[in-house]
């Protein structure tokens, strides 16, 4: 029943996102409208893929660091991506894909640094150090970014922050194709780690006794979740809230078993971001709202409602 409802929501979200928009496209022309085929359809699919990826990455990271506040962007990736993007603009790297590639590279660099910090105590990845290291590296990268923006001459640098705030304006079939080819690999890695992630909730020691290769699982989950987030930030900037709230909503409804939780977080994240983007494009048309505003405006009330029901029950 829950799955049918979620599946239905996903279909409705995708259809609504393609049918509704600020430009008036008559229903009869939907099938052969350039706006629908080349803008709305790829944007809806990208929203779904990015939202889903953020949902799963968030669920995986929350289990890994055993902290309900964990968010895919907490681990320094947004700072790294921002630094990459701003550097690309400051160094006049041109080309239509310069910004996404630079942001991806920046996120990967931050990922590498945080990962290295996480191993600082020895061969075991320490989740607490991952969290602290992520926050520290993120702050450091953000400081360098701000320094570049305030010192460099290029006026367009000030606008680079707009891109970082996140949005799906860059969606095209190219971006959809890139994400659709890339995301399944880390998604599969995370799904394969569903059982050990359940065990990890009992504590690392207990998980080890119950047969989980704790160190390998932690590394795999961290890297897969971060690689998913890096791709998301490269194509759509930092879209907040999806990766934080969707895993909690999924957990409140589906329980703590990751075999169900992760797919639910994927579909839930996809639904939330697709709906949010449809609203962002239409509610103040012809203007557009930043999609992160809408994800928070929808996500928080849903979360509060579920939390209330859950704590009362």
């Amino acid at each position, binding site marked *: 029943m829950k799955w049918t409802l979620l599946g239905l929501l996903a279909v409705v979200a995708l259809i609504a996102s393609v049918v509704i*928009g*600020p*430009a*008036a496209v008559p229903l009869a022309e939907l099938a052969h409208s*350039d*706006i629908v085929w*080349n*803008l*709305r359809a*790829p944007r809806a699919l990208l929203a779904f893929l990015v939202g889903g990826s953020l949902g799963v990455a968030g669920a995986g990271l929350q289990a890994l660091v055993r902290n309900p506040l964990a968010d895919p962007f907490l681990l320094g990736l947004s700072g790294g991506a921002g630094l990459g993007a701003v550097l690309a603009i400051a160094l006049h790297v*041109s*080309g*239509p894909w*310069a*910004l996404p590639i630079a942001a991806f590279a920046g996120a990967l660099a931050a990922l590498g640094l945080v990962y290295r910090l996480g191993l600082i105590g020895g061969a075991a990845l320490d989740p607490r150090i991952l969290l602290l290291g992520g926050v520290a590296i993120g702050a450091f990268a953000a400081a360098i970014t701000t320094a570049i923006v305030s010192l460099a*001459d*290029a*006026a*367009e640098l000030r*606008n680079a922050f*707009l*891109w970082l705030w996140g*949005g799906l*304006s*860059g*969606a*095209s*079939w*190219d971006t959809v194709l890139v994400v659709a080819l890339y995301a399944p690999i880390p998604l599969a890695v995370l799904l394969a780690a569903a059982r050990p992630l359940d065990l990890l909730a009992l504590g690392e020691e207990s998980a080890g006794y119950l047969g989980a290769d704790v160190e390998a699982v932690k590394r795999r989950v961290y890297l897969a979740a971060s690689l998913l987030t890096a791709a998301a930030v490269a194509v759509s900037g930092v879209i907040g809230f999806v990766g934080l709230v969707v895993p909690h909503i999924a957990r409140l409804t589906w329980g703590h078993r990751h075999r169900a939780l992760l797919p639910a977080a994927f579909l839930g994240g996809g639904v939330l971001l697709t709906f949010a983007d449809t609203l962002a*494009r239409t509610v103040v*048309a*012809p*203007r*557009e*709202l*930043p999609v992160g505003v809408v994800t928070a405006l929808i996500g928080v009330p849903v979360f509060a409602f579920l939390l209330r029901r859950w704590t009362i029950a």
Partner: protein
Amino acid sequence: MLRRLGFVVLLLASCRPSGRPAVGPSQRIVSLLPSFTEILFAIGAGDRVVGRTQWCDYPAAALAVPSVGDGLPPNIEAVAARRPDRVVLYNAGPNVTAAKQFERLGIRTVLIDLNRLEDLGPAARTLGRLTGQEEQAESLATVMDSLAGRPPPSSTTSIAFVVWDNPPIIIGHGSYLDQLAAQAGARNVFGDITAPSAQVALETIVARDPRWIAVLVDSAAPPAFMKRREWRAVRAVREGHFLLLKGSLFGRPGPRSGEAIRQLTALLAR
């Protein structure tokens, strides 16, 4: 007791507004907006400009004036180091705070609105009064007023100003660029948006179908987004109808606004 009284007198004397010269024409001016720098030079007060922003690149003589940085927000010390008797600031939030700081240092300031064509005349008159160049300022202001008051020609083409591509930010009705377009005979397809600029969905640009996409650039290189696939949905992009407008001429209202309108008209007639 007498000593104490003397101290109080001294204290009172030091409280009197002092150190300020009597109000006369400003002799050392720091201009914190390229438009003000252009106006000051145009009304013959250029030789009294002792500080400018790094963006003030016109007229050529302005480049010889020391720069005090980007002016966003003003670097108080760098400006004060030029020992100005008047700082000219654009009237906006952070500048209001900066102006108060200058006043506390005993430096007179003036905050001037300059957002649209009709602000040019009053701005020129204000600067003329402060520099004692009333006559030249009045003749410039008259030209500017007639420019602002001129009914725009009926539009023969349409345009969208794209300030940023991801997310797409466009120029709306309440802006100088919208006025430039109207005076050059082009209808801003986002003229219904009252804000000076706004974020819109790409499909809205496609649906509004402007004949021209105008971009303010400092370099001659076209912006990279023109090659991105999603932008190919916009007809003007597919057809290569781009206007690369130099920000230093088109991006600021000033004495050269008439020149900007003439150049834009010529570009649109291509």
